[in-house]
C-alpha cells in the first residue's frame, strides 16, 4: 500500500493506482475529458491537472496518467490548478466550441468567454475513439496520422477500413461530435443541438432559455459570408 495525502487528507492506495483514481476514491472532483474507465489513460486533454508538492518546486501533472507514489502531496484545486484548468478550457473552446461536453465543463468552471482566435474543429485529438476502437472493439481501424498541426484521426488513406465493423463506438465516446450544436448547419442536424431541441436552434433569439453557456455563444454564431 502507498500512503499519500490529497488536499491534506491521508489516503492509502494500492500500487499502480493513479492520482485520479485516488482523488475520486476520496471524493474530490477532478474534471476529465479524455479519460474513460475501461480505456488506458492517455493524458491528452490535460483537464485533470493536479499540483504535486508545494512551494517553488510544486509542479502540475495530469492525474489520470500519474501513478501514486509514497509521500506525495497532491492538491486538486489549488489556485494554480484552477487557473491552468480554465486556460485549458478556453483553448478547448477556441478549437471546438460546438461540443456540448466542453461547453458544460466550461460552464462548471465559470468560463464563459475565450480569448483566442475562434476555430471550429471537428476533433480535439483526445484519442478516445482510437483507444475505444483498439481496446474495447479490438478493431484498430482508426489511428493518428501525420503530426504537428496536421495531426488527424482516421483510417489509412482515408478509405474504408477492412477492420471497421461500423460499431459506432468511436462516435459514442467522442466529446467533440457527440451532442454537437449544429446551429450553423441545421441541415446536418442529428443530435438535437445545444438546447436539446428538435429541430435545433435555428432561430437563436427564440430560445432564450437554451442550455448554451457561452456568452456570447460562439458555437451558434453564424459565420459572416
Amino acid at each position, binding site marked *: 500500500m502507498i500512503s499519500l495525502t490529497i488536499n491534506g487528507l491521508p489516503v492509502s492506495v494500492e500500487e499502480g493506482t493513479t492520482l485520479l483514481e485516488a482523488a475520486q476514491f476520496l471524493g474530490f472532483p477532478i474534471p476529465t475529458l479524455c479519460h474513460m474507465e475501461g480505456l488506458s489513460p492517455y493524458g491528452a486533454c490535460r483537464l485533470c491537472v493536479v499540483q504535486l508538492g508545494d512551494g517553488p518546486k510544486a509542479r502540475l501533472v495530469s492525474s489520470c496518467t500519474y501513478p501514486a507514489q509514497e509521500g506525495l502531496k497532491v492538491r486538486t484545486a489549488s489556485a494554480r490548478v484552477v487557473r491552468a484548468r480554465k486556460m485549458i478550457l478556453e483553448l478547448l473552446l477556441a478549437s471546438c466550441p460546438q461540443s456540448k461536453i466542453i461547453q458544460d465543463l466550461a460552464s462548471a468552471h465559470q468560463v464563459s468567454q475565450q480569448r483566442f482566435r475562434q476555430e471550429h474543429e471537428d476533433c480535439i485529438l483526445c484519442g478516445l475513439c482510437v483507444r475505444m476502437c483498439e481496446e474495447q472493439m479490438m478493431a484498430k481501424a482508426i*489511428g493518428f*496520422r501525420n503530426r504537428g498541426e496536421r495531426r488527424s484521426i482516421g483510417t*489509412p488513406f482515408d478509405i474504408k477500413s477492412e477492420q471497421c465493423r461500423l460499431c459506432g463506438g468511436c462516435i459514442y465516446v467522442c466529446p467533440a461530435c457527440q451532442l454537437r450544436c449544429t446551429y450553423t448547419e441545421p441541415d446536418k442536424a442529428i443530435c438535437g443541438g445545444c438546447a436539446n431541441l428538435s429541430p435545433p436552434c435555428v432561430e437563436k433569439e427564440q430560445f432564450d432559455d437554451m442550455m448554451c453557456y457561452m456568452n456570447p455563444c460562439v458555437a451558434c454564431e453564424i459565420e459572416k459570408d
Partner: protein
Amino acid sequence: MKAEEVLSIIDRHQDQGDGLISVLEEIQSKYSYLPPEALKLVAERTGRSPVDVYGVATFYKSFSLKPRGKHLCSVCMGTACHVRGASAVAQEFTRQLGVKPGETTPDREFSLETVNCLGACALGPVAVVDGHYFSNVRSSRVKQIITDTRAGLDDAERRADLRDFILNVSCSRCNRSLMDPDHPIDGSPSIRVTAAFERTHGWLRLSALYGSFTVESEYPIRTDVLVDFFCPHCHTELQGASHCPLCSAPMVSMIVRAGGIVQICSRRGCRGHILDLNGSGF
C-alpha cells in the same frame, strides 16, 4: 512494385524485432516512396494494424507516400541557414526546377523539399542533393548544382577530389625512378624502397596514391618502429631535412617527378607527411 521484393525486405528485418522503421526505410530507398500496397503488405506480414504502419509512415517527414524523383534536393530552412538567405536559395530551386517544395518535377527527375535543420549550421545555407552536402549555397550556384546532379554527382565529386592523384617519385640522389609498375598497389604502380629496421632489411612498397597509406613489406614492421629508407638503386639513405610535424621522427624525402618533394614520416603507423610541389621546402 513487386510483392516478393517487399516481402523479402520485411523478412530480412524479422529477427530485429520492432524493425518497422528500418523496413519502411528500405522500401522507400528501393522505390523512392512508400507504395500503398507495400504498406499493406508490411502490416499483414508483421501482424500490425494497417493504421499503425500508416501512422508511422505519415509521422516521419523522411517517408513519402507520393512517388519522388530520382534526385532529392533538400534545402535547409533552419534558423542559421534562414538568416543567411536560405529562402532565396529555396526560391531559386523552385524557379529552376519549376516545382514547389514538397513536389516532384513531371519528368520524375527531381524532388524538392525544405527541411528544418540538417545539423550543419556553420556551413549555411546548406542544400543536400542525393546525400551530397553543398555549403554556403548562393542562388547563383543553384543552377550549377542542378546541372552537376544531372551529370552525376559522384563523378563530379571524384574529379574534384584532390587526394586522388598519383605521385611519381624518384631518388633524391641518383634521380632514378622508385616506381615499380610490376607490383601495383591501389591499382597503380607502387613506390619501392629498401627498408632497414631492427637489424633486418628488405623491400618496402608504398602506395603512390596521395592520401593512401597502404604499405607492403617483405618483413612485418611493428607499429612505432623507426625505419630507415634507402634507394634500391644507389643505396643512399633517403633522409629528409626536417622532422615529422606529428611525432617529430626523422622524415624520408623523395623527389616528385612533376617538380617538388614529398616527405613522409619514418615511423611505422604515423601518417605525418609533407607534400611540397614547388620544391621550396627542399
